[in-house]
């Protein structure tokens, strides 16, 4: 997924000299190709994210197409106000990349873990939020965000969970992508980012009738499609490596509660910080986002209906 991100970024920058990559002193190996292919379009702004995002607004005003890269704990969370005032308020075409979302930095603790970024960004008007699940989605999200010429936040999480699609996809703003076909009346899994692969695996093993939807474009969201899914499904399970407050689960619940009430199990981080250090898989388990725990949660939830 990171290789695909690098590839699409270099491709966009070579085709459009106005594309500038700004990094807050992160992405050392990730940008080797970019620095080699487009050295004049690369700016390391230093460990100064607030200034970097403000500058990106100035560069966009001057006609450039900044892509601003940082860890999602910092971009967007540290710079929410710069995104709101300097970029989104004037719909400036800046793409903000938050890498390492969720528990990628499992050993580093709360400082580098990021489970609030969707909630922080989603409430900002005119800011689109993308959350690709695999290499095909990251490529399509970048292309869609670039052509939209509008403010965008793209969340990149755990990148080596395997593909969820078998070929290139077309990401349209607000559209969900079917990652596994099930049957009408089955459970609908609606997942994003690193948890899409998990959702597919669980469906394959335990819920053969379940349909799995991937959500690479969280905001804005096509409400009509969500309502259709709600009406055709026994129940909905949302999955994300983000807080259950303000993320994908909240989005689906907001739409369905108004237009197609349905019981929803929101699988995500339960409004808590990580307590312990450990591997990525360990951290998922600590937060109840490992396969076994999720399956048990779904089983318990369905037993109530």
């Amino acid at each position, binding site marked *: 997924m990171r290789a695909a991100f690098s590839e699409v970024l270099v491709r966009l920058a070579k085709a459009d000299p106005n594309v500038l990559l700004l990094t807050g002193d992160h992405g050392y190996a990730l940008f080797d190709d970019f620095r080699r292919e487009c050295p004049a379009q690369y700016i390391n702004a230093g460990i100064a994210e607030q*200034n970097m995002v403000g500058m990106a607004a100035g560069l*966009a005003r001057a006609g450039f197409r900044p892509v601003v890269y940082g860890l999602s704990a910092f971009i967007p969370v540290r710079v929410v106000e710069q995104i709101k005032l300097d970029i989104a*308020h004037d719909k400036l075409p800046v793409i903000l990349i938050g890498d390492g979302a969720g528990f990628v930095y499992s050993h580093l603790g709360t400082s580098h873990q990021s489970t609030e970024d969707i909630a922080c960004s989603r409430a900002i008007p005119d800011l689109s939020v993308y959350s690709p699940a695999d290499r095909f989605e990251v490529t399509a999200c970048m292309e869609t965000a670039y052509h939209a010429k509008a403010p965008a936040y793209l969340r990149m999480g755990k990148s080596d969970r395997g593909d969820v699609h078998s070929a290139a996809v077309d990401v349209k703003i607000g559209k969900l992508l079917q990652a596994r076909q099930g049957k009408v009346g089955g459970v609908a899994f609606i997942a994003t980012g690193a948890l899409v692969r998990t959702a597919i695996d669980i469906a394959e093993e335990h819920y053969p009738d379940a349909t799995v939807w991937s959500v690479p474009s969280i905001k804005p969201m096509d409400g009509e499609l969500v309502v259709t899914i709600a009406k055709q499904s026994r129940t909905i399970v949302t999955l994300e490596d983000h807080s259950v407050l303000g993320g994908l689960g909240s989005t689906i619940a907001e739409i369905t509660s108004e237009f197609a009430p349905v019981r929803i199990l929101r699988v995500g981080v339960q409004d808590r910080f990580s307590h312990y250090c450990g591997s990525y898989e360990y951290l998922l388990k600590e937060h109840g986002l490992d396969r076994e725990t999720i399956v048990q949660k779904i089983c318990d939830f369905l037993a109530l209906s």
Partner: protein
Amino acid sequence: MVMNSMNKGFDAKVLRKTVLDMAYAGSTVHIGCAFSIIEILAVLYRDHLRYPGNEPLAAGRDYLVLSKGHGVMAQYACMRELGWLKEEAFTHYFADGSDLKGLSDSRIPGLEVTSGSLGHGFSVGVGLAMGAKLRGSDQKVYAVVGDGEINEGPIWEGALFASHHGLKNFMVIVDENGFQAMGPTKDVLHLGSVQSKFESFGFETITVDGHDEAAIHNAVTRLWASDASLPKAVIAKTVKGKGVPFMENNNMWHYTRLNPETYAQALSAVAGGAQ
């Protein structure tokens, strides 16, 4: 050195009267914040800022970034001189459904940034300057910041960047009036020498009397004439509330609204050119 010609407008007395009229019409605050930058803005608009065709959004224009958005009435007053705003905008300031806000809003042509939340405009200005440099354009960027505002961290992040990248087309003008919202800057968060700070960040600096238009003009001109690839800083020693004796150095006028008596007294003081 060519001195300013007052016949080109931007008379400080007129600008202050405009601010008083709109502050009274809108029953609004931040008069002191506007009065400390009147001469700074007058000099920039009259002698330095280039707006091809007198268009506020002209391509290739210089950029005036009012990072201390609280002084926006001073900028509105200058934009009135340029004919960019309708009279109704002044007589109906703060009316329901009106455009001009109490802080700088970039959706108004002529205002480059949305500020008031402090420490934003400076960085946007650095980005504009970097953009001009990358394009090989001779556009200049002026960022007007308050001394209270430079409590904010992004100012110093941006100063490092401007210096590191040799943004010689970027000029910060510090309105050093010695006050911020809750009191004197030396009591709230002591700044020490603002000039030394910008110098140590790699800026070419000059300190001037921020109400002496000739001195401001000369400082700006001298700094732009420099061959050094350094960003510039003008430290303007100003008086908060300048022009109305009962407002000068009285921080109440960060927050106080005019009543009929104070409005009349202030108009009289401004008309008399009280120094």
